[in-house]
């Protein structure tokens, strides 16, 4: 197998034993990018020269006998809403098409310290608003399992790059499912960590009370390795949790004995595709056969989650995106008559339609006279949804649901119907609303050969238990077929 097709844990051992060099790995990944990127469109910006330079530096440090982190020399792609000093960070928007941050996000400093090689910046839905990567200002990313289909979103570039072998690992961000949903569609593993576990400093803000950076990889091991490197308290993020984190990779255990799995009936309703439902239940049964216990539970407010999510996230987005005014950075309209005209033209020309819809919804629900009817109700429901999850975790260790109601849809299929697009988030948004960790792990393919994702949800800061459950399932499932491009 070519180096680009191997997983991070394997490559890490090979690098450590000097069977391969980081330069060889980086060259292999870029050869793959040269081969497949034209069909996949995973990257907005490639940084080949610097990648090869940092790979050579890592190789030199290793040759000098330096003790390096397990991620040293591993090639990664970064979602384009994570600030990278001096390297364009566009959020896949015309608004930030030429923006180069003067600073690194905290996660980028952590990755640099770990010796990660950054191949480039990955495509996404504009400002992370979307579920298909079709709202990118630059280009739509394609699903490596079927290039006529979407990879999911908003971290579609991240999931597609890992699935295509164009990156060994990737960082995504998840506000309502943006890591887990594309991971499910692209047959890779994606973790949305507990709110506060990973610093958001340098993540371009969409909905600050929900946004979280997280890892995407081919296997649970890879995701555990990357999560260990990026989590931790950060004084630059006021919402960052003050606590110690274990080494998730070393802590992985393959054991289903005693694992209590909850099946929330509200997540298996009519909207869920029959084949998807079957694959999820097959996965749960496999764990049960190997020692886990399964119990039906109820999360009754799930029906209101999508509405609460769109109200809260859009309200926060309307405020966060007020900063794009054409003054300090970003796009500015060419012709205008006075300040207000400059603001309006800049924002109208710089933002795409989906971003405008979200800003308008957020502005509406926060506007005078409507706050109680929308935002306040949504925040009260958020509390109720969180309480229902807390009750459930008194009885079970993890909750299993589909990650997405269907497998990947065709490019263009839902672009004219925002509501249909929003409905793809129905199984993932509750997790963000409650601030919980959750992951998606591939659990088979449907009859069209498209990957299905099993979502596992855990209590706050129980990432290790969640990763262990997924790791155990992954062993029971066996290998997963790679995308043929």
């Amino acid at each position, binding site marked *: 197998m070519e180096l680009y097709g191997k997983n991070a844990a394997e490559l890490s051992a090979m690098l450590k034993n000097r069977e391969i060099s980081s330069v060889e790995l980086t060259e292999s990944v870029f050869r793959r990018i040269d081969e497949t990127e034209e069909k996949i469109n995973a990257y907005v910006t490639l940084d080949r020269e610097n990648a090869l330079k940092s790979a050579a530096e890592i190789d030199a440090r290793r040759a000098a006998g330096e003790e390096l982190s397990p991620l040293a020399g591993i090639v990664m792609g970064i979602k384009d809403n994570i600030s990278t000093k001096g390297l364009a960070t566009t959020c896949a928007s015309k608004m930030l098409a030429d*923006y180069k941050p003067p600073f690194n996000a905290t996660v980028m400093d952590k990755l640099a310290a770990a010796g990660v090689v950054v191949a480039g910046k990955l495509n996404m839905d504009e400002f992370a608003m979307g579920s298909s990567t079709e709202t990118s200002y630059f280009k739509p990313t394609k699903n490596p399992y079927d290039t006529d289909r979407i990879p999911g979103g908003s971290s579609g570039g991240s999931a597609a790059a890992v699935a295509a072998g164009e990156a060994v690992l990737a960082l995504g961000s998840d506000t309502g499912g943006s890591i887990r949903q594309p991971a499910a569609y692209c047959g890779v593993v994606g973790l949305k960590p507990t709110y506060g576990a990973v610093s958001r400093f340098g993540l371009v803000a969409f909905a600050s009370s929900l946004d979280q950076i997280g890892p995407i990889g081919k296997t649970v091991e890879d995701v555990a390795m990357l999560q260990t490197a990026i989590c931790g308290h950060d004084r630059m993020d006021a919402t960052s949790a003050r606590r110690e984190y274990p080494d998730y990779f070393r802590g992985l255990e393959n054991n289903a004995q005693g694992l209590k799995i909850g099946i929330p009936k509200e997540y298996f309703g009519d909207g869920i595709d029959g084949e998807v439902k079957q694959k999820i239940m097959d996965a749960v049964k496999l764990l049960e056969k190997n020692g886990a216990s399964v119990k039906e539970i109820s999360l009754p407010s799930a029906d209101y989650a999508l509405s609460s999510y769109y109200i809260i996230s859009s309200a926060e987005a309307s405020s966060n995106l007020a900063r794009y005014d054409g003054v300090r950075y970003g796009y500015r309209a060419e012709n205008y008559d006075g300040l207000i005209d400059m603001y*309006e033209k800049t924002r109208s020309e710089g933002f795409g339609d989906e971003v405008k819809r979200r800003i308008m919804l957020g502005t509406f629900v926060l506007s005078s006279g409507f706050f109680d009817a929308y935002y306040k109700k949504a925040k009260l429901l958020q509390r109720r949804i969180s309480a229902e999850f807390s009750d459930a975790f008194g009885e079970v260790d993890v909750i299993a649901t589909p990650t997405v109601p269907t497998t990947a849809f065709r490019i263009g299929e839902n672009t004219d119907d925002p509501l249909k697009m929003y409905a793809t988030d129905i199984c993932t948004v509750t997790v963000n609303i409650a601030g919980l960790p959750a992951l998606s792990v591939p659990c088979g393919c449907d009859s069209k050969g498209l990957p299905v994702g099993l979502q596992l949800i855990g209590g706050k800061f129980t990432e290790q238990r969640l990763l262990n459950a997924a790791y155990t399932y992954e062993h029971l499932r066996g290998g997963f077929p790679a995308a043929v491009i």
Partner: protein
Amino acid sequence: MNIDIRHIAKLARLRIEDDQFEKFEKEMQNIVDMVENLPDIDEELALDENDPMTLREDCAVTDKYTRQELMANAPQVKAGCLVVPKTVE
């Protein structure tokens, strides 16, 4: 609930072109209709006692950015200042 798109767009400093207006209005109306299903909950919003606010350490910031670095992304700069249209007559 009917929403006044022109008013909301003005508040958001956005402009919806005439040929786009009808489509936008319909889409926004559908979205607002979707999020209207929330039940009444007779409770008040309160801060979470289990998640108290903490202040960050009171120490000097050591990041050193030059003025040039910070202004490098500005659309228009003149004599070390950001240029905007005249706001005071």
